[in-house]
């Protein structure tokens, strides 16, 4: 009997109370076999929690739930497990347990949370993607919330780094997690040795719903990829729908799991600012990507800067701050481009420009500019972000 699972899943008892109970009784099994009398005498629990504990003892459905958990290859990481992220332990209100599909970030891995607006601009999307990619190339774990906009861009950027490094990670880890879910579940017994783990291109999503619920549903593909190269994490039990109140709590885990939080684009009153607040309370570094003062979408980020957040003006410097050495300085030689290519590249920007604008600004003819754009796209210097709209896709860091 997996009493660990039973206790973690018992509803109605707060995380703090669970920690206290476990501290006193030592083992979950003891709690399961407490008699009604004994429970009634537990003064440290609220009357409601006592009721809940008794109800949980009577409830037989948890065995079934545990089976689903095993079948889905979800692992449960509790407060006292070795895998439980050290970074979370120092929080004021750490989650008692985490459901993980895929992996948690290894304890020693540097992690950065990238957060921002769902309805973001292309500038924000490009920035998030580029920053995430650079971080992931250097083995930094990218954490976000799998929402639309900045979140998705951050995850995608990190995944792209994995593609580039060609790490066989994806296949290797998929086989592992589906092979023996039982082992994954009882991870705290055999734990210790984390498997050979390539941290390049790893990205983690913390959800505001159960880890088996893909929310938003449109990100199904992203979700699947992330399970293979990183993990999907949540404190909500399996099957839990995305509930409003879970999201602010989810934000504290995002910041808690990270060494630094980067706000890419946020409006005046944005959920991302809540994450930034959590990060400050938890003593994490808060960075913001500056925007133009005319962009409403950058208001939140710029406001954070005015409040003393760090400016993320260069990924290289950011990596230095994190204590990660930039390995291969994959220097992009603007000089290696031909004259026309350089011309077009210099006109490109992080805000998308229509082909029409590029034609006017460069003065090239139709065929010429298409040729150059095609070449730049091939080199990875430009990207057609919408139909006929192009952006620069390399940062000179």
């Amino acid at each position: 009997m997996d009493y660990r699972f039973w206790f973690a899943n018992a509803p109605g008892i707060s995380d703090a109370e669970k920690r206290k109970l476990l501290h006193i009784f030592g083992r979950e099994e003891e709690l399961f076999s407490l008699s009604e009398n004994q429970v009634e005498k537990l003064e440290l629990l609220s009357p409601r929690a006592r009721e809940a504990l008794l109800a949980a003892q009577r409830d037989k459905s948890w065995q079934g739930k545990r089976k689903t958990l095993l079948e889905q290859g979800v692992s449960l990481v509790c407060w006292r497990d070795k895998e439980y992220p050290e970074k979370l332990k120092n929080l004021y209100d750490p989650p008692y347990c985490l459901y993980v599909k895929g992996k948690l970030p290894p304890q020693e891995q540097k992690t950065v949370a990238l957060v921002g607006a769902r309805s973001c601009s292309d500038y924000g999307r490009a920035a998030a993607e580029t920053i995430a990619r650079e971080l992931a190339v250097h083995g930094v774990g990218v954490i976000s919330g799998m929402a639309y906009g900045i979140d998705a861009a951050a995850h995608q950027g990190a995944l792209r780094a994995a593609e580039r490094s060609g790490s066989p990670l994806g296949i290797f880890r998929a086989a592992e997690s589906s092979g023996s879910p039982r082992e994954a579940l009882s991870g705290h017994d055999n734990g210790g040795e984390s498997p050979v783990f390539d941290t390049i291109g790893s990205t983690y999503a913390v959800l505001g719903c159960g880890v088996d619920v893909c929310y938003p549903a449109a990100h199904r593909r992203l979700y699947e990829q992330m399970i293979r190269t990183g993990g999907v994490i949540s404190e909500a039990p399996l099957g839990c729908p995305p509930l409003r109140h879970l999201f602010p709590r989810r934000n504290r885990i995002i910041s808690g799991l990270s060494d630094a939080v980067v706000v890419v684009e946020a409006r005046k009153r944005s959920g991302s600012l809540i994450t930034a607040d959590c990060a400050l309370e938890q003593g994490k570094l808060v960075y913001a990507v500056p925007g133009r003062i005319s962009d409403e979408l950058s208001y939140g980020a710029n406001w954070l800067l005015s409040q003393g957040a760090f400016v993320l003006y260069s990924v290289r410097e950011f990596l230095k701050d994190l204590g990660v050495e930039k390995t291969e300085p994959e220097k992009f030689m603007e000089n290696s481009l031909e004259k026309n290519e350089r011309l077009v590249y210099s006109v490109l920007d992080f805000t998308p420009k229509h082909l029409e604008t590029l034609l006017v600004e460069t003065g090239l003819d139709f065929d010429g500019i298409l040729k150059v754009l095609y070449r730049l796209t091939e080199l990875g210097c430009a990207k057609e972000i919408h139909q006929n709209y192009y952006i620069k896709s390399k940062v000179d860091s």
Partner: protein
Amino acid sequence: MYSVIATAAVHGIAGMIVKVETDVTNGMPEFEMVGILSSEVKEARARIRAAIHNTGFLLPPKKVTVNLGPADVRKSGTGFDLPIALSVLAAYGLLESEACAGTLFTGEIGLSGRLRPVRGILPMVLTARDHGYTHVVIPKENEAEACMVKGMNIHPAKTLWEVISWLKGERTLEPGPINIEETGSPQEEPVDFSRINGQRVLRRACEVAASGMHNLLMVGPPGAGKTMVARALPGILPKLTEEERMELARIYSVSGRFEERRSNLYARPFRSPHYSVTATALVGGGRVAQPGEISLAHKGILFLDELTEYQRPVLEQLRQPLEERKVRLARVSGTYCYPADCMLVGAMNPCGCGYYPDKNKCACTPGDIRRHLRKVSRPLLDRMDMSVEVPRVKMSELTGSGENESSQAIRSRVEKAVELQERRYGQENFRYNSRIPADKIDTYCPMEPGARKQIARAYEQLNLSARAYHRLIRVARTIADLSESDLISESHMREALLYRTMDEAVWR
């Protein structure tokens, strides 16, 4: 006594010879009409009786039986009035039956005996010619339409009396001097491309679309000039061929809109139904089947402005005709087939407010945008050969000095490309690049190895469907034709990729 008079009915856009037989005998006075008649044909009875009376004939009460044969085809329309009246008169012995032989009659009659115009004159006259008739008597108002058919003696008449006296040899019925090109209400001239500033990408896309009759989708913020460009499009399309012109005239004749086209018989039609259009009006239909907008746009442009505002079921109706290039309407009375070989041009905003991807102006959430785009279904989108994003025009371009290319200059290039296609597809049953069947693409679209590599890469990266892949090659073929090259080169393919339809990721 017995008499028989020839007339014609319209089925789809084809004509069909109908014989009106009348028998007059003694017996209970009655006027019976048979031959599966719709109500407007049955009502002819009352019109004819009054008209004959008012023309000055007295019909003694007798048993009159009128049969419209072939008897197993449903007859509708008002063109039977005149032949029935003549047939009755002949059966009463008031007319020489022989005088009517070899002549086809059609026309509606008012109570006073005045002839009124009817729909579908053109297919009727054509059928008459095909069946060896040499003379046709028609209402005066239909004269211009009938005169389009060469080698027929057209006799326009104003009243029943005129027809009778012509049959008696007392007068002649000759068409007035008609210059089809000059009469009729002047049609709206298409906007000239020289009036469109900036928008070089869109201009070029239009040129390519016009050259290969590719369907075109324009996506852009309000006021970017999408509608204006669409209105300029007919001006750069090649002139109609004689065959196409005749086919179009038939469609317009059948739907009773010949006057609309009369002034501009050589121009390609441009139809832009408002988005409140119903499915019947768009593809055709009705109890008595009528061609819809898509058929009226045959060999021309069907422009759907604000594509997202159309009712989705209405738009979905377009799928099959766009593929088959004709509309088949099955009714109890038979199956009607109307040609519908048009170039579909759509215009829409990228999101509800219209400004996406300019996030400073657009406050639509990703969900809003998806909901907006989803109003146009994927399958319909799959039938758009080309798609362009139209940006807002900059002030400097708007006021810039107008040395833009004129429609005339663009059309000369388009015509050259069309000529090339005509030569290439001489033996085939299609004439434009956009109509190349998938199995003939390899034959007609040879590519440079570089271009082949490019499209192979795009196929993987953009996650193209097989249909989209073929579409890209067809568009590249047209671009190559515009530069008069037999081989599709890398630069042609690059340009074709520019006009690919929106990515799967954006549009789901």
